[in-house]
């Protein structure tokens, strides 16, 4: 997917002016956080599980090479195949070759953020292979030619009416010429249309939430059941997963599953959690004849051992964006690439370059709500600050900001000068603001006064001046 992260500020303007998006976001802000809170309260061990989830991921990352090799060994032992893809281009090539090897015309895809990351659909289409998104949200945005706006709820920016229009436009040729008004009718129509596509697909492509080294299994967590149809009906199952998805054992999976669903949707458990291990076995009545796992690096191995390593713990639950007031104001598309919200603000500069995505780690108040809900306790604000430091070092910070900061720090490091200047500023601001108590506009503060009044200081001087003069009360 082509990044528009550089146009973040324009994207924000568009997002704030979109009433449908704002309606959807209003709902998201209350719904997800409230459901997560209730789910966490129902499980007294939740905080202890978060600690353990963090530790498991840290342990795995410290031994990532070992667990990947172990995973591979187990997959091979059960008749599966493992492909190593250092870059996005490698992964695209591997998958295209696999599809062509079985003469695939269509690929049933279940939602995979990694597939978005490597822009797989565009690549397959160019080769004449039709990828069919089967997750309802992904299906809707595929019809609309839009990118996902949320990592677990890709169509969360749309209203029911927008979905109804989209279905009418695209399903008419299949004989559905009535515009639907009820959600359950929309779901039923999509189910019907997609069912046939599942039955016809030559290849099923899924992501993976976890890869279990102990057993060589890929683990998928979904609610719809589409991933399971994708890995059961077609004759080839391809799992596309990034290398940090591997975990050691099934016991570790149990811990991670307990925090994943609760953090993501506030469910006790998602409807389907599936472990796939190798191809169909002798005597099985269904299942794929071939089972392939594509392990994608795409820059992740280079993040290990750096100050950004913690982001590799991410289990893609979406809680950070559900609780982010910036995401809540502008939605996912504004971030301009695959991964939005706080985790995107950390990951996107890594994957598309900090020049392209320089705004993302800056567009945060560091309110810390993301870190407070992250199931694997990623210190997201700290990582965003690291990006700001790198930008500053590389002179990517906007010139006006740099100059303002330089001036401020010159003064701030000279207490005498600082006192003098603040005394003057205080006097001027309080004098001219005396009558109203505030300003409707101020030179150099347009960013503030465009939307807010600026409170004027009361008369009497700065605190330090008054204190020095021996006052005990303003």
């Amino acid at each position, binding site marked *: 997917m082509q990044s528009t992260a550089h146009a973040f500020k324009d994207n924000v303007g568009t997002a704030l002016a979109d009433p449908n998006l704002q309606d959807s976001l209003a709902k998201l802000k209350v719904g997800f956080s409230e459901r997560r809170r209730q789910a966490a309260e129902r499980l007294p061990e939740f905080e202890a599980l978060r600690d353990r989830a963090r530790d498991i991921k840290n342990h795995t990352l410290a031994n990532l090479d070992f667990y990947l090799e172990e995973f591979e060994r187990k997959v091979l032992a059960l008749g599966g195949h493992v492909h190593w893809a250092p870059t996005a281009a490698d992964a695209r090539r591997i998958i295209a070759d696999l599809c062509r090897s079985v003469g695939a015309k269509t690929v049933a895809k279940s939602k995979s953020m990694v597939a978005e990351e490597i822009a797989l659909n565009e690549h397959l289409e160019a080769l004449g292979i039709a990828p069919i998104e089967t997750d309802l949200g992904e299906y*809707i945005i595929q019809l609309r030619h839009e990118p996902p706006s949320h990592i677990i709820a890709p169509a969360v920016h749309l209203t029911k009416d927008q979905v109804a229009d989209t279905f009418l436009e695209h399903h008419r040729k299949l004989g559905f010429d009535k515009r639907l008004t009820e959600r359950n009718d929309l*779901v039923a129509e999509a189910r019907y249309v997609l069912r046939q596509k599942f039955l016809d697909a030559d290849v099923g492509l899924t992501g993976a939430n976890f890869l279990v080294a102990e057993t060589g299994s890929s683990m998928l967590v979904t609610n719809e059941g*589409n991933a399971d149809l994708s890995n059961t009906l077609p004759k080839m199952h391809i799992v596309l997963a990034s290398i940090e998805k591997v975990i050691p054992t099934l016991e570790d999976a149990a811990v991670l599953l307990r925090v994943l669903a609760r953090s993501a949707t506030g469910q006790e458990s998602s409807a389907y959690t599936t472990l796939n291990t190798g191809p169909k076995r002798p005597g099985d009545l269904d299942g794929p004849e071939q089972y392939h796992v594509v392990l994608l690096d795409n820059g992740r191995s280079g993040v290990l051992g750096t100050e950004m390593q913690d982001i590799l713990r991410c289990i893609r639950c979406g809680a950070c964006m559900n609780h982010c007031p910036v995401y809540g104001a502008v939605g996912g598309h504004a971030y301009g690439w695959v991964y939005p919200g706080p985790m995107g603000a950390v990951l996107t500069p890594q994957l598309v370059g900090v020049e392209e995505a320089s705004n993302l780690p800056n567009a945060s108040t560091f309110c810390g709500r993301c870190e407070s809900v992250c199931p694997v306790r990623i210190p997201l604000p700290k990582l965003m600050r690291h990006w700001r430091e790198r930008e500053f070092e590389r002179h990517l910070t906007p010139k006006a900001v740099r100059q303002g900061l330089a001036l401020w720090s010159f003064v701030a490091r000279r207490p005498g000068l600082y006192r003098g200047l603040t005394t003057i500023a205080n006097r001027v601001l309080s004098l001219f603001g005396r009558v109203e108590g505030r300003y409707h506009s101020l030179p150099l503060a347009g960013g503030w006064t465009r939307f807010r009044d600026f409170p004027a200081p009361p008369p009497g001087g700065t605190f330090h001046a008054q204190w020095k003069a021996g006052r005990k009360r303003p």
Partner: protein
Amino acid sequence: MSADRSQILNGIRRSLQRGELAGDGLKDVQSRLAQPPRGPTVARAQLAPADKVALFCQWAEFNNASVARVSAADVPGEVTGFLARNNLPANVAMAPSPLLEGYDWASQKMLSIRRGRGEGDDQVSITGAFAGIAETGTLVMASGPDHPVSLNLLPDTHVVVLREADIVGGYEDVWGRLRERYGKDRMPRTVNTITGPSRTGDIEQTIELGAHGPRRMHILVVRE
């Protein structure tokens, strides 16, 4: 191909500032793999057997499944009764499993049974379950000749027969049973853990049942 493999693995090692694991470091991870440590104990997964059954039923219903607690002799009757109560057809696709064959289906004259895998237009399926997890009301299905995966997914209605003795506390207990049955390193091709009917919240964050998998799930919990 193998160049790509070593590129990734060596990249990881370079970043971690070490070579291939060896010595104590290797022994530690190997033994962690051989004896997987359990996570924090979840109290509600540690109940006595009878309470586990009750907890399983409670969470299964919380997750929009319906539950009937029956004796073995009543299983076929409850199935036809359930189908009739819900105006569902009496044609079912059934898993060819010894467990299910142990019930007296012949007693249900109206019921027409096809044994095999699921097909795209199946209305109702009947399967057993490898286990039930009390902690969340979750069913565990292990694939094999006696349990085609498609039966869990394609039909509109999924009827599951679960023995009380197969209800365990938490996920960890299921892993134990799987290792016992299939061997430590050998999982069944597919293990589906299923918690209630299929659902989606993709339109306006409102849950609708029956996205791709079954719309309706009925669990028969069978007393021994």
